């Protein structure tokens, strides 16, 4: 059984159809990259998988480990192992990062019937991840994302992912707004998370990130559909030909079929 099975997914936002029959299979252990021009529906896909309520699915199905993901509430999807690194991470004033991280981990542990961690028990859990993402103590005591630079916010997303150990991580443009050093740190964090029982979907519209996080598969999303899939070389082809070229080629193939 695949970890994630998306079949013929159609989704609307405010009455606009954005996803128009998207299918994708992702197995545990794989890293997939989804590339596509602005507005093609990449974030919409991520939000639908994370079960955001104002995205209306009109057709199709999504199975996570054989379970109906579309029937889940956002928090249940999260507890079932879906993690989304936000394109624009949200600020929560007055709540320290460390408190937030513990609350999140505990919510998931509780869901699985595991003992919740008190502040002391939690220390070893996050210390190790802090090293991985190269952040210092003050990062943990500051309010969630408040006053964080763009790069710090993205690092915080990956820190959360490292801590929550999801089955399926979806990174939405995690590379946007990162300088080369931050990119390296974030990529290291993500690569450290690669594991036979975890899948990662990297959404980006630049090839650059994929030099650091090398995907097993690359998919091209245009106008709500995956128009082409291939190996990591596809990212390079895209870089050369642009989306328009790939799309034209894909539709030519479609006509030929």
């Amino acid at each position: 059984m695949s970890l994630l099975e998306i079949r013929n997914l159609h989704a609307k936002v405010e009455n606009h159809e954005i996803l128009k029959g998207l299918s994708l299979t992702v197995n545990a252990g794989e890293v997939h990259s989804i590339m596509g021009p602005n507005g093609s529906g990449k974030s919409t896909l991520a939000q639908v998988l994370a079960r955001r309520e104002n995205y209306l699915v009109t057709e199709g199905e999504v199975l996570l480990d054989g379970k109906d993901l579309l029937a889940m509430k956002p928090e249940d999807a999260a507890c079932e192992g879906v993690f989304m690194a936000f394109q624009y991470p949200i600020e929560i004033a007055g709540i320290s990062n460390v408190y937030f991280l513990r609350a999140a981990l505990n919510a998931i542990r509780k869901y699985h019937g595991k003992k919740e961690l008190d502040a002391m028990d939690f220390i070893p859990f996050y210390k190790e991840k802090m090293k991985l993402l190269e952040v210092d103590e003050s990062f943990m005591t500051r309010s969630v994302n408040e006053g964080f630079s763009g790069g710090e916010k993205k690092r915080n997303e990956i820190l959360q992912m490292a801590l929550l150990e999801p089955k399926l991580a979806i990174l939405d443009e995690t590379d946007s707004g990162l300088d080369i050093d931050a990119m390296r740190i974030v990529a290291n964090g993500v690569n450290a998370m690669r594991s036979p029982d975890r899948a990662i979907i990297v959404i980006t519209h630049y090839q650059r990130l994929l030099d650091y996080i090398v995907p097993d598969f690359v998919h091209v999303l245009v106008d709500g559909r995956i128009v082409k899939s291939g190996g990591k070389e596809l990212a390079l082809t895209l870089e050369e030909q642009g989306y328009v070229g790939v799309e034209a080629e894909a539709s030519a193939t479609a006509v030929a079929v």
Partner: protein
Amino acid sequence: MSTDTKIIDSLVEGEYKWGFVTEVESDSAPKGLNEETIRLISTKKNEPEFMLQWRLKAFRHWLKLEKQEAEPKWANIKYDAIDYQDIIYYSAPKPKKAGPKSLDEVDPEILLAYEKLGLPLNEQKRLAGVAVDAVFDSVSVATTFQAKLAEIGIIFCPFTEAAQRYPELVKKYLGSVVPYSDNFFAALNAAVFTDGSFVYVPKGVRCPMELMTYFRINAADSGQFERTLIIADEDSYVSYLEGCTAPTRDKNQLHAAVVELVAHDNAEIKYSTVQNWYPGDPVTGKGGIYNFVTKRGKCEGVNSKISWTQVETGAAITWKYPSVILQGDNSVGEFYSVALSNHWQQADTGTKMIHIGKNTRSTIIAKGISAGHGQNTYRGGVKVLKSAVGARNYTQCDSLLVGDKCGAHTFPYIEAKNSTARIEHEASTSKVGDDQIFYLQQRGLPKEDALSMIINGFCKQVFRKLPMEFAVEAQKLLSVSLEGSVG
């Protein structure tokens, strides 16, 4: 309605969990307000003559105000006219024996009521480190740790007892900070107040435990008019807490209290309130307590300090401005407030800092949360008199909106007559976003926990000022007040 507001709506439906009624026989005055009512109260309380005279003066003043229709109208609140003749001004649970002297003599129903409220009064179960005065309708039914406090000279007792046992102290301080002529409700309270707490901390004593009064309105059609007087003598310290709840009833009930604080040289009073009166029916807005309260402290001595911390989650209407008169040089006044107006609740609350002494400092941190159809108003005054050389004030006033049918309003008044004064004012308004809630849900937190976390973050600066146990209580209370069914 957008999805955004639907999500928020489903979150802010809470249920009032303190709405039970205790079946006790009570001894009540007939409805209505006249000199007879006041004489009756004074007799019931076995008060010295000066008290009766003071009450009568207050009553005559109130009558005048009533004739002039001087009930305050400036606040940003709406309610039907109150019929002052339709209220029971005295209602006390009938003691099984005359004047219960020990807890064994208190009606077990009442003990049970306090236990249900999370405030066990009997010896074995008492809260550690907190002395409690339990006021039930018009009378104090029990006060814990009184003897222990007396050993170090601290007086902590029902007001009625103070008037009988310490008339000189009461006479000296009663009305010294909030005179009966202060305002319409203060005059009413002075005329008819029935009980409350009295605290005196002698020179050089640091009160070793939190003192707490828990006000419970139980009887129907009654009002609660209590009066609290706290005096901190030179070099003393006391932390005092106040909590309150009432049964669910569909008629509005009036609660018009007065609190007076006096801090002498180098003394500090920390006064914390968690107000959780019945807020009225969440759907219709029917019923609920009118919480019309006058609270004021006087920093009489040099280097004295008074801090008000309030978490106002209940009541149909809150009208309340705990203030500080900064008379002693270098004295400090603080006001930390969280006010929540959910459903049909209205709150018009804030503070007034009056700088008289040199180098007096005040800090105001006010957090208003509006949800449902709630209307929340911050009204604050900072007044610096000519004498207040070097006075400083910092005000921060933040509003948080949950949903789009509620409102937040801010009215800061600043008046500085001394050019050396430094006054800073910051204000912000924000909205709990669908994106914030989704972010937290995406990390595994259920919707209610997500909202509760956002609100607690917003209130953090204020919660930090509450004594530990109260802070936890206040956080829970806010979550409950905002709790609802997850759709």
